[in-house]
């Protein structure tokens, strides 16, 4: 809890989320306990009051996400976190945030599903996160950390993007990312906006009472209901323009792709495990690379497409087949794509991925 700003501290990914949030300027947290993300509310219940913020343990995820809607509408950096069924309960408010241009930050440390599932790692909420998740047409910006350090760093980007676009941002980790304990440097990333700069992005729409804007200021209203004929169409066109502008935020990491014949596409904890397997196989002379999307929405489709000539792709993810659809869409037939799924809830090692990678390599040679 007393990590200084410069030294490296040994903390869990969940704790890194909490430190990152506070350092990025988060001043309100609302949440409801659920494994495997409980270290986030526990840490913030100490950190936020210490930093002049508010921590509220809500009566449900429904309430927590709606509290977030209220706080974020005031232009105050605010967040919630949950997992699995808890995230399902938040979809109502997430849809309202998207429809009302409200910048909520939601952390999802995924657990196995569907239903109550288990508390092991999973990437089964990929579709829910990147395709909207709530009712109506909406999109969330989705960031996928793979390490505890990235949990810390991406919280800065989460708040900056949420405020830049006045849109919900989901940080999509999983049980491994949240529970893994690693050294973390508690230092804002070089490109991070200062909290005051993040809050300044809200000056044209935040709710504060009209008196806060000087004499004669008009009242403000944040809403998602548009009943007049054609009004909702206009609203959705505006949202489409916003989603198109978000494409500028694509982020990804590629490793050993230059000479690769086969590129593994994976995100989050599976990308780390795949990297270990790839490193081992490259030592044996196999030409393998890794493409790791850091933003899942917007999906880094152009960067992936640029790698297509002369290569094939293997999508590895911990679900029954979700991101593979975005990879297929991105490549649009420009390269062959195969898929390997790790079932939700399983804890796997690099050994479990070497054989599927070798199999995919062989397929290429046939």
């Amino acid at each position, binding site marked *: 809890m007393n990590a200084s700003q410069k030294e490296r501290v040994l903390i869990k990914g969940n704790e890194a989320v909490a430190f990152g949030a506070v350092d990025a300027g988060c001043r309100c947290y609302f949440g409801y306990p659920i494994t495997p993300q409980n270290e986030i509310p526990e840490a913030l219940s100490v950190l936020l009051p210490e930093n002049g913020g508010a921590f509220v343990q809500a009566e449900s995820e429904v309430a927590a996400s*709606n509290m977030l809607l209220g*706080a974020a509408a005031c232009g105050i950096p605010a967040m919630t976190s949950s997992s699995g069924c808890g995230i399902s309960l938040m979809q109502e408010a997430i849809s309202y945030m998207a429809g009302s241009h409200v910048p909520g930050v939601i952390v999802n440390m995924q657990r196995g599903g569907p239903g109550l599932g288990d508390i092991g790692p999973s990437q089964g909420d990929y579709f829910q996160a990147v395709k909207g998740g709530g009712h109506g047409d909406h999109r969330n910006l989705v960031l996928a950390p793979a390490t505890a350090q990235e949990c810390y760093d991406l919280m800065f980007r989460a708040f900056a993007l949420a405020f830049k676009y006045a849109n919900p941002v989901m940080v999509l980790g999983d049980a491994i990312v949240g529970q893994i304990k690693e050294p973390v440097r508690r230092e804002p990333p070089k490109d991070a906006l200062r909290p005051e700069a993040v809050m300044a992005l809200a000056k044209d729409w935040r709710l*504060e009472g009209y008196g806060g804007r000087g004499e004669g200021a008009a009242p403000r209203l944040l809403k998602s209901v548009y009943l007049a004929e054609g009004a909702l169409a206009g609203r959705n066109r505006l949202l489409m323009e916003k989603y198109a502008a978000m494409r500028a935020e694509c982020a990804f990491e590629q490793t050993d792709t230059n000479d690769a014949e086969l590129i593994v596409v994976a995100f989050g904890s599976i990308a780390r495990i795949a990297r270990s397997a790839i490193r081992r196989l490259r030592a044996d002379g196999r030409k393998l690379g890794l493409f790791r999307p850091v933003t899942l929405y917007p999906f880094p489709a152009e960067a992936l497409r640029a790698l297509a000539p002369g290569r094939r792709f293997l999508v590895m993810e911990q679900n029954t087949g979700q991101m593979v659809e975005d990879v297929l869409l991105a490549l649009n037939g420009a390269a062959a794509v195969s898929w390997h799924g790790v079932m939700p809830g399983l804890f796997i090692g690099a050994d479990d991925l070497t054989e599927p990678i070798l199999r995919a390599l062989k397929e290429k040679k046939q």
Partner: protein
Amino acid sequence: MIRVSDSADALRPQPGECLAFDVNPVLNERPTHYCPGCHHGIAHRLVSEALHELGVARRAILVASVGCATFTYDYFNVDGLEAPHGRACAVATGVRRARPDAVVFTYQGDGDMAAIGLAESLHAANRGEKITTIFINNTVYGMTGGQMAPTTLVGQKTTTTCQGRSLSNEGGPVRLAEIMAQLDGVAYAARCALDSVKHVRAAKRAMRKAFEVQLDGLGFGFVELLSGCPTNWHLDPVAANRRIAEAMIPVFPLGVFKDATTTAPADAGQAKEAPRG
């Protein structure tokens, strides 16, 4: 029997009270979308007068709900936010925690607050959130066309209880003011009615008190307003007012059920002694 002198006394201005009708800058001049005889207009006026007289409209944030009251924000000259159905008290919690200097209020119907939003409403109250909640109880879902509400009276016919609400199948009406009064975080809980001038004036005093406890940081302020819905009751406005007096008040007794500002038995100016919370 009501003696003429009692009745006349009740209508006389109280100290500090002005009975002249004036333009209130907190309400704009847009004609409302409410049906003839609906009491939302009176309730809006009472809220706006409380905000105006307390001088807090400039730092007020309205959290609107879903139902006939969805478009409340069209009529108030204050910052506003739309909440999903039932979630107004949770949204207001977030607003108040993010902006401790704001004056935050929700305006909710009976379906919104006492059915789909009961959990959010009770827990916000129990936490003692410094917000004020105006609860419109008209025993029916208005916006969706007259279905059963949690406050529908036993025997009352609605489009989803065409034989009348029965205790054995649908349960009885939820008495929210009494429930609120049980919670430690509630600073003020009152039930008033909008069927007569006398009751409206009592409601005005209760409304002001429900905001004052927020401003004084005492906790959650709650006012339930028994209101008419001539359209979905299939009554004319005068008969609707009569229904409030004859059918609703016996089931939903008027009074102040909790008042943290006084230790003496509370009185919102109602004829009936309130049950103690």
